[in-house]
């Protein structure tokens, strides 16, 4: 890698200039440059922001580029900002011994994004968890049910506007 851990590259242009040989960046550019909305490299971690309707193909692209192990997906609620939700996918490469983060921004109105379970079946529980606790739907998920909370539960507890005290 050309950039050392100390360097912070903020913005798509800086990352494309600083890490042109990075296998994940190269793969995304070779596949669909317009799908890459933003990028940053800080704390030694590469974050690629992907257009929200292309996450499944982007996941398949980085998988083919050697990022073979899906580790985690979770959400962040930026309420009341817009777009409200951020999804962070963490993917590890066994050959490169490295981790990347794919980021997707989702609107707060009926949030929904493509499921990546067809690329990595291991995303199954993680997407169910995000659905349960944030209320983001994953289209194409085989079994989108609540996983932590009881099935009849109302609301999504990890949202920032979910009341944390008093009776509901």
């Amino acid at each position: 890698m050309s950039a050392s851990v100390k360097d912070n590259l903020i913005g798509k242009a800086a990352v494309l200039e600083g890490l042109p040989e990075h296998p994940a960046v190269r793969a995304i550019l070779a596949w669909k440059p317009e799908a890459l909305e933003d990028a940053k490299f800080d704390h030694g971690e590469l974050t690629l922001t992907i257009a929200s309707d292309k996450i499944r193909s982007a996941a398949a692209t980085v998988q083919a580029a050697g990022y073979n192990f899906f580790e985690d997906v979770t959400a962040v609620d930026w309420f009341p900002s817009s777009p409200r939700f951020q999804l962070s996918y963490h993917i590890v490469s066994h050959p490169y011994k490295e981790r990347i983060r794919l980021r997707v921004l989702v609107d707060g109105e009926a949030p929904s994004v493509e499921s990546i379970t067809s690329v990595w079946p291991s995303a199954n529980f993680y997407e169910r968890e995000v659905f349960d606790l944030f209320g983001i739907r994953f289209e194409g998920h085989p079994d989108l049910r609540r996983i932590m909370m009881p099935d009849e539960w109302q609301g999504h507890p990890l949202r920032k506007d979910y009341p944390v005290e008093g009776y509901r």
Partner: protein
Amino acid sequence: MNPANTILEAPAATGSHDQHMILNMGPQHPAMHGVLRLVVEIDGEIVVRLQPEIGYLHTGIEKTCEAKFYHQIVPLTDRLDYLSPMANNLCYCLAVEKLLGLEIPEKAQWLRVLLAELTRLNSHLIWLGTHAMDIGALTVFLYTFREREEILRIFEGLSGQRMMTSYIRIGGLAMEPPLDFFDRVQGFIRTFPEKIDEYSNLLTGNPIFRNRLKGVGILSAADAIALGVTGPNMRGSGVDFDLRRDMPYSGYEKFQFKVPIATEGDCWARYLIRLIEMRESVKMIQQALDGMPEGLIKADAPKIVLPDREKMKTQMEALIHHFKIVTEGFAVPAGEVYQGIESPRGQMGYYIVSDGTAKPYRVHFRNPSFATLQAIETMCKGRMLADVIAVVGSIDIVLGEIDR
């Protein structure tokens, strides 16, 4: 297509097949290692379908974290994987330190490695005891808990707590280890390899234990990757990856150790891998004891690390810093980090998002058992119902970290 897509294409358990029966195992079941519930569809004694139901221990720790100062979260992390508290503490502290850009003194790093490996022994001992007990070899349980007791006593001397240690803190360690700490650890690991031989003598040649595990719960390497299985379970399936060696943290690159691999992918392979891992951990603890550097155990960051008790009572600045940290916390620069470590159960990763205040905006725990649970169906399908017990025991799950 991925080979593990079978888990996705299985039909819903409706009970419509006349000869099939839906059997509910757990959440209160002695072999479910906590409060795991398995909905098993069986044809006679053959498992047709298996669905884990979780959430019985869900306490909303991630939500609680958003209302706490950064240093107040350390005790919460103990309670995730309560069998390896030091691994949780370490992962959380490394993540916050990464966000803060904090340099940790070398002695603290070496002690952290020592404690992480001691925790691995602790966790593997419980796994071995309970796994053997599930299979019916009751004696081993008593032996492993005898050794675990010594580790817990070492932890107690170190932190005042046997299980919920909270000893690894942001910026270093809670306090200097007691005077007899290194001698006790040395004494423990001097005799421990013989104890592993003892377990091995009881189990490895035991024909019942062997028959219950060999060829049972097979997970291929491709399935292990597709289903997110990590740690000893993944290495038992022939995937050669260990974060301690491949993406080192906290000074692991300075240690020499082997990463055991087996290709069979059955319960027996996972059993052998963990036995070898225990031996490797002993070697690493010995290296840590031999090469333990001199120096401080806390970073020089008075606004982040709590001052020593002695200083607090004699120096004005220390008292002020103590008061400020405890009442207001410390601001962490805005940003997001993900820190992965190799916990006894596999790849643990903490994801922290900061908005620049003294409380984290979002904390997420990637715990290895949660993903490993997805692979149970693949391992059990088409096998006898009794093998489910062997499989659940062999993958070494902790429900505290699954449900969070």
